[in-house]
C-alpha cells in the first residue's frame, strides 16, 4: 500500500468518511476521478503528475453531497479552491478531509483551513511556463492582433459549457447564461454570443480564479481560457495586491475598495 492509500484506509477504518474522491488510472491510459465509498477499492487510488482534474468541483455536486462525510485528494490548485470557496461561504472548516499532495508527490492529511493555508504557503509553484509565454505573446501583440487572436479562438466555441462545469468556482445554481429575462447572453453559438459568454465568465472569475487551468484542459476546441482569468488576476494583483486562494478569509478585491485606488483612467 502506498502512503496515500494508507491515509485513505485509515479515514475509512475509523469511520471518518463515507466517500473519498481521488484519482485512478482509466481505460484510456490517463487518469480520472475515482469515487471510493468503502475501503475495498482503495488499491485503485493513485497519484501521479497526470492527475490534474480539480476534484473540488465535486464538493457541490448533490449526488456526492448525499454520501455525507467526504475526503478529497487534492494538490495545490485544489487546496486553493478550498480556501476560495471557503471565503465565499460555500465550505466550512471541518466539512471535509483533504489529502494534500505536496510538490514532491507526498500525501499528508489536512483538516483545517489553517493547515491548508500553511501548506499552500510552503508549496508555492510557478504557473506553467507555456501559459506565461502565451500570455506574454498576446500582451505583446498589437490591439488588432489580439482582437483577431481572440475572435478566432472564440469562434471555435460551441458553448458546451465544459469550462463552466469543471470549474470549482462556477457553483452558481443559476448561471448568467441560463437567464432569459433579460437574455444577457445570446443562446446561439454566434460570434457575439460566444464573446459575451467568455467575457462574462472571465469577469465573474476575476480575482476568484485560483488558476487550476481546468477550463482550458476541458475545452474540446482548445480555447486557452485560463489566459483570460490569469491575465485578470495579474492586473488585480498589480492594482490591488490581492491573490485568491491563499486565505480562507480572503477579501474579494472587487467587493472591497481603498480610497486611494488608482483612477488615472478616469477623467
Amino acid at each position, binding site marked *: 500500500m502506498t502512503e496515500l492509500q494508507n491515509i485513505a484506509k485509515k479515514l475509512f477504518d475509523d469511520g471518518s468518511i463515507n466517500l473519498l474522491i481521488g484519482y485512478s488510472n482509466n481505460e484510456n491510459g490517463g487518469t480520472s476521478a475515482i469515487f471510493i465509498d468503502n475501503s475495498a477499492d482503495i488499491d485503485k487510488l493513485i497519484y501521479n503528475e497526470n492527475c490534474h482534474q480539480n476534484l473540488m468541483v465535486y464538493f457541490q455536486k448533490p449526488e456526492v453531497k448525499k454520501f455525507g462525510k467526504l475526503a478529497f485528494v487534492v494538490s495545490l490548485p485544489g487546496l486553493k479552491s478550498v480556501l476560495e470557496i471557503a471565503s465565499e461561504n460555500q465550505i466550512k472548516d471541518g466539512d471535509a478531509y483533504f489529502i494534500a499532495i505536496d510538490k514532491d508527490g507526498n500525501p499528508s492529511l489536512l483538516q483545517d483551513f489553517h493547515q491548508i493555508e500553511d501548506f499552500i504557503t510552503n508549496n508555492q509553484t510557478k504557473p506553467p511556463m507555456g501559459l506565461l509565454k502565451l500570455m506574454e505573446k498576446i500582451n505583446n*501583440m498589437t490591439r488588432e492582433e*489580439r*482582437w483577431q487572436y*481572440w475572435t478566432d479562438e472564440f469562434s471555435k466555441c460551441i458553448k458546451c459549457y465544459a469550462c463552466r462545469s469543471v470549474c470549482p468556482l462556477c457553483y452558481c445554481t443559476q448561471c448568467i447564461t441560463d437567464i432569459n429575462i433579460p437574455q444577457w447572453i445570446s443562446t446561439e453559438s*454566434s460570434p*457575439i454570443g460566444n464573446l*459575451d459568454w467568455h467575457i462574462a465568465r472571465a469577469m465573474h472569475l476575476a*480575482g476568484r480564479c485560483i488558476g487550476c487551468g481546468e477550463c482550458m484542459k476541458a475545452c474540446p476546441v482548445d480555447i486557452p481560457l485560463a489566459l483570460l482569468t490569469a491575465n485578470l488576476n495579474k492586473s488585480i494583483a498589480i492594482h490591488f495586491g490581492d491573490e485568491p486562494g491563499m486565505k480562507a478569509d480572503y477579501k474579494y478585491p472587487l467587493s472591497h475598495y481603498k480610497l486611494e485606488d488608482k*483612477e488615472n483612467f478616469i477623467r
Partner: protein
Amino acid sequence: MSEFEPKIVAFVCNWCTYAGADLAGTSRIKYAQNVRIVRFPCTGRIDFMLLLKAFEEGADGIIVSGCHPADCHYTSGNYHARRRWMVFKDLLDFIGIDSRRIVFSWVSAAEGAKWAHLVNDTVSEIRNLGPMKEYKNLENVSSNKIGELIND
C-alpha cells in the same frame, strides 16, 4: 459621404452626472448630439454586461460617469465601480477591444461644463477612432451559410 457620426451612449448616475447634465441644460451649454443617456441610481449599479450590450447594439463609444470619489450619494458605489472598471478595462485590452471606446469620468452635479466637454471630447475622439467595426464585423456573420455551419 457625410462624416462618420459616432453613436455614443452615456451610463450616468442619477445624483451627480445626470444632474450635471441637467445643469449643462439649464446653463444652455451646447454640446454634440451624438450621446444618448441612460440613467442609473449609481455607477455601482452599472453592470459590465450592459457595456457589452451597448457595443452589440451599435454604440461606437460609451461614457460611464458618476460622482467624484467621496461624493457618492450612496457613499461607496463609485469606489466599487472604479475597481470594477479598472479590471474590466484590462480585460477588454487583453481581448483586443479598444478600451479607449469606453470613457470613464467623474462629473458632479455642479459640473455642467465638464459634462459638455466630456461629451464633445468623447465624440471627437471616437470620430477619430472610427466606427466600432470589430463588433459590426461579428454581427455580419449569419448562421446559415454552409461554410460557417462548421464552426469556423
